[in-house]
């Protein structure tokens, strides 16, 4: 195994532990917004889509590149916006409860 691969593997394993640890105390009410927020985070594949499209040549590669960029951008923009709307709804709901 090369040093680079070993480094990537290290990053992968440590990120897995962090991912589990960091959300371990989430209350039930936040399950859906957390799912939606983390859904937006895997939109980071847009960086990968940009990288491969920038170095691809030929009609097939460029077409697939355009498709990948569009899909990944929908994931990022839609993901963060819909999460914000969910959390906004929580806030207004809590405020109306206080007013009552």
């Amino acid at each position, binding site marked *: 195994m090369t040093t680079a691969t070993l480094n990537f593997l290290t990053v992968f394993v440590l990120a897995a532990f962090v991912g589990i640890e960091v959300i371990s105390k989430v209350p039930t*009410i936040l399950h859906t*917004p957390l799912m939606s927020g983390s*859904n937006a985070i*895997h939109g980071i594949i847009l960086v990968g889509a940009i990288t491969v499209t920038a170095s691809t040549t030929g009609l097939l590669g460029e077409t697939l590149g355009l498709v990948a960029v569009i899909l990944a951008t929908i994931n990022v923009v*839609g993901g*963060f916006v819909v999460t914000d709307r969910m959390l906004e709804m929580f806030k207004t709901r809590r405020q109306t409860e206080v007013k009552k």
Partner: protein
Amino acid sequence: SNTLALIYLISASLFILGLKGLSSPKSARRGNFIAAFGMILAIAASLTKIHPNGNQITLIVIGVIIGSVIGGFSARKVKMTAMPQMVAAFNGVGGGAAATVAVIEYLRLSVANRSVVITALSSILSVAIGGISFSGSIIAFAKLQEILTGVPITYKGERFINAAVFLAIVVIGIYLIAFGTGLAILGVLLLLAIILGVAFVLPIGGADMPVVISLLNAFTGLAVAASGFVLGNTVLIVGGTLVGASGTLLTKMMSDSMGRSIRNVLFASVGKVIDQPSG
């Protein structure tokens, strides 16, 4: 370059802080903003630091504009009650993107490079898991949107067919790792993964869809991490793995809060001919 790697490190840290924020009621909205900021940073950095020719930069910019319009518009317009299926849809396109990125890179690699085990393995995982997540999410969307019935769709021999498709994917995967040839065979793998995604979600009831979407969300995270291995990109590995790991735990928590096991949610009605809608 080093600058790019440093910016990716900042983005990865912001993702962790964002997830941390999202798991507490007081800081949830701020957490979402922090993660979004990390995302913008990583995207802006990769746009300015890569040097594609004019044609490719045009493609990328057009793609980002089209994606922003579609994503932004549908997220703004969706009714509050329809949000879970919207999350499924956004998750599906993410899985599709991860699979496509791996296909493009595979297309570009020489046969010698494709045969490097770690590259071959991560390409195959990205294409297979991304494909499953893509089609599975579409079915989850269709069930929640009531395009498909919310009742589990089952038939005799379902277990056998699902297992056969899964096995075929494993065999083709091993073949690709061993020989590193054949873009067409990678295409077949993607097609089988798409079929498996459909077959996997069909026998699950509409009420269980949130758990399924959470699992598919974790799948997409893993597919993105696998793409990160193919491209040698740490921010993809960190971002994808964070979602893969936290998403798996979240899936367990969600089924726990329904008083059931993940296994029960996913496989209870596979292949059973049911008289009454369950779950």
